[in-house]
């Protein structure tokens, strides 16, 4: 999956660059505005269905107890705090940097959505910051587990429900499965809300 995503990003970048050199403005408007917005809305809709149809997650919550919710909310708060502080540290727009970090690792959403809300530079940041978050979670799991039992879950953010779940379970043990999955599920669900709500702060 990652291979195809990076390939389509690269291909899009090259074709976009060439198109800009040749000056086909109509194509640029079609892809950058219509196709982009259409695909973003379609992704949110399809992900909504996937969240809504998931009966098991509701049952898992009942079993695990709602105390488990502190984990995703601490991760969300931590990510947004990290974004706020880096905004001030780098003297860039702190609202936009909070929104970028509120992708919680879901780069296929955070990239396009932040690009749409704050401009393409933030789209690029949204993609890279969240893409590397997923990559770093997998790469450093054997080290991060030494900091805290839940550190890999905290690092994985929204990706803890799918792409980083196998690695987390392998290192944190099978009892971390439900926590990791539910934390990732909640973070994926709230990511579009937090990004757009942060954007209204401007």
């Amino acid at each position, binding site marked *: *999956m990652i291979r195809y995503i990076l390939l389509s990003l690269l291909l899009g970048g090259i074709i976009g660059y060439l198109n800009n050199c040749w000056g086909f403005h109509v194509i640029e408007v079609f892809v950058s505005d219509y196709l982009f917005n259409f695909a973003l809305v*379609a992704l949110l809709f399809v992900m909504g*269905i996937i969240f809504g149809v998931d009966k098991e997650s509701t049952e898992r919550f009942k079993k695990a107890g709602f105390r488990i919710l502190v984990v995703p909310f601490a991760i969300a708060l931590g990510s947004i705090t990290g974004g706020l502080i880096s905004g001030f540290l780098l003297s860039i727009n702190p609202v936009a940097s909070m929104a970028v970090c509120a992708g919680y690792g879901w780069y296929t959403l955070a990239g396009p959505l932040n690009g749409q809300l704050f401009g393409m530079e933030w789209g690029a940041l949204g993609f890279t910051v969240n893409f590397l978050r997923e990559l770093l979670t997998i790469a450093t799991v054997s080290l991060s587990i030494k900091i*805290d039992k839940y550190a890999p879950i905290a690092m994985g953010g929204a990706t803890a429900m799918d792409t980083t779940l196998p690695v987390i379970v392998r290192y944190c043990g099978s009892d971390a499965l439900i926590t990791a999955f539910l934390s990732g599920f909640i973070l994926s669900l709230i990511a579009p809300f937090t990004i*757009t709500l942060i954007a209204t702060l401007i």
Partner: protein
Amino acid sequence: MDLLTILTPLVAGVALGYFLRKRRKLSLNKATFWIIIILIFSLGFSMGSNNKLLISFPHVGLKTIVMLFLTLFFSIIFVKIARKVVNLQ
């Protein structure tokens, strides 16, 4: 796009998914895959055709590293504190 345009499809999707729970199998893997490919392609396209962005690309690196590490640092710390507070093993 405003708040409503972004959140309406998500909420509508969740509602529709909730009603589809009784149905047997619903596979959206293929649809999701192609939507993501189209979305990321157009993201790449928009970035590639933006000259100002391409010039500022070297600065993106430092910003990415700072944002990434602070995000991870605070996520881990906050989870550690939250676990202590509610006594989650």
